[in-house]
């Protein structure tokens, strides 16, 4: 694992001088970023483009990336989030949220809501959350990321990520009650 991290670190430094060295990093993270984008999109073609532009931006800004503090993967997710937001701003399309039974299960656990009613209710109450709140739900519950990673991706502390996420859960509880 340490060797892998070292190899990645070497590739990052080399990429700053030679863009071709970025290719192994692209291959390594391409699938993660594509899936990440696709979960926030209706169209797979759009997800391909977001993924390509995420890596293009990462490559053109690799000189800025410092290896202390922020994981390379988190940095890529951060760029992907910006690209997705930019995409929705540019196209004026409605943002897409993809929920599946597994996601719903985690939210059911947290909110104490019965699974049968939850999915229907979720479709209503999610409309009342802002995009930051949706982001937190997606990262933590739909993608099951640890709070430390959620914090890194969003540029906030782990503790802050935790506090904010549970505020969203509290909000969901209240909204569920209103819906029912």
């Amino acid at each position, binding site marked *: 694992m340490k060797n892998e991290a070292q190899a990645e670190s070497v590739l990052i430094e080399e990429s700053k001088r030679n*863009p071709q060295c*970025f*290719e192994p990093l*692209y*291959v390594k993270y*391409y*699938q993660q970023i*594509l*899936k990440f984008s*696709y*979960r926030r999109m*209706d169209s*797979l*073609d759009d*997800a*391909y*483009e977001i*993924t*390509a*532009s995420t*890596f*293009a*931006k990462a*490559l*053109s*800004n690799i*000189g*800025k990336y410092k290896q202390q503090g*922020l994981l390379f993967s988190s940095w890529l997710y*951060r760029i992907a989030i910006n690209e997705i937001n*930019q*995409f929705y701003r*540019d*196209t004026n399309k*409605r*943002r*897409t*949220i*993809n*929920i*599946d*039974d597994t996601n719903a299960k985690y939210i059911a656990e947290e909110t104490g809501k019965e699974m049968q009613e939850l*999915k229907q209710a*979720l*479709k209503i109450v*999610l*409309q009342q959350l802002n995009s930051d709140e*949706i982001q937190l739900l997606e990262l933590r519950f739909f993608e099951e990321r640890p709070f430390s990673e959620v914090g890194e991706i969003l*540029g906030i502390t782990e503790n802050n990520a935790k506090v904010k996420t549970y505020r969203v859960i509290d909000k969901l509880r209240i909204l569920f009650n209103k819906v029912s």
Partner: protein
Amino acid sequence: MKKYNINENHPELTKEQIEKGMDFSKVKKMAAAKTYGSFYKAMIAGIGVTMLIICPVALNHNNADSSSTSYSNYEKDTVVLSQKGSLTKELARPFPNIPVEYEKFTIEANEYSSVKSADGSVIKIPANCMVDSLGNPVKGQMELRYREFRDMVDVFLSGIPMEYDSAGYKKHFESAGMFELLAYQNNKVVFVDPEKTITIEFASQYTDDRYNIYYFNQQTQRWEYMYKDTSKLNTNNLAKQIEIVTNEINVLEKSIPLKPALANPKQVRIKLDVLEKEFPEIAIYNNVKFQITNHQKINPALDTLEWDMVKVIKTEQDSYMLHFERGTEIKEFSCVPVFEKADYVIAKKTFEENYKKSLELIKIKEKTKQDLVKKYNAEKTSQQTSLANSRAIRTFGTIVSSSQDLITRVFYINKFGVFNSDCPKNLPQGSLFALKLVDRDSTRKVISFNTLYLVEKNKNALYTYYNANKFSYNPASRNLLWTVTSDNKLAVFSNEDFKAIKKTGKGEERILDMKIIKVDFKNEAQIRKYLDI
């Protein structure tokens, strides 16, 4: 209202679907377009009418297929037609009637050119370095337009935002040098061939090495990081040469051979291999021994004991220490390098041959250093005079002297536009309050504002507060705050005014009595006078 599309149980991506989108060459092209191609987003000068036309252009003349990428963001490259053709023309300049003027230079596109600005900066352009909007080489005479933003008044008048988005965090720039370079032929904008590099040796008064080079992306209106400014190391070529020669002299001085000494048969002597780089003064000799000099009682068994480490340490000129270490036991003895009789004769000969040579070599290097220092001082004086003259001209007779050393910050660019050697900083901290501005005259009229400008005069930093309802500043700094009123007047809050601010609770509203300068500004010098910058 429905804000989101909500999909249920989105199908998992298949292996084929994943592989279909994998295309590193496309990523590279897009990255190249972001890094090098954005100058094609620039503008073409139009004469007569000011208008904005947006149309697609090729991103890179070498990659005809690069424009075939389907993602709309990367096809939205624009050509802007403007009357003046400035890259910054779309910026909200606080006084549109007072531009920061360009210097113009006519050069031959096919020949190497080097031009010097009034402020002493040098622009070096390789031959055949320009292309037109279709990527065809530009030949014949062309015009360079160059301007520098040397201080906060220049930056303020340019309207160039000095905010920098660092991974989502808003920072403000502290500039060590900013300029704009454009090129035209027959009033049509031309571009730098991405394969070529233009060098700008910017005469900067800021000698720190904590700056980075940024490019102002006109399309996004944001600064983009380019690379670390290593100017201090690379720039002042003469200074660097002086540093190199000084180091060479130091090395030579350390390598002057030590005069050999004959061993005393009554004293304890130890033979050790020493590293040349540690003891260059004895490295030319063979069979050097270290003879213990002090009168400490020496254990005769010393040489029969096995030590973990035995080393020689140089303590002062011609003085050495023998260091023995075994576990926690340490023994140290003063010593001198000596030679047994036969070796001494050879060493003496070696010394005589090399000692004079070393001194002569040092003398030659000292002379080279003196010549370089003379050149450096002459160059420095010339740059300072040039800068002071240009400042004096700008301020209509006010003599601005610059006692600070100038250094040359080197920018390597392969696109035209605005470049900056900068250090992103946080907004000043210390005192924070909600803000209301009023005219300090008897009317006490409330001043509405969009943008507030705060300068810390002790730094080259202009902080902009857009539609700020909270304002923070550092009471320890020399502050100057101003805004432009709706009728184009300057409203100023001076450093003395800041000092008179009484403490309030954190975040509480404070009314700042602004002094309205009731002057219709016609030129930069007037603004400089009233802002005292």
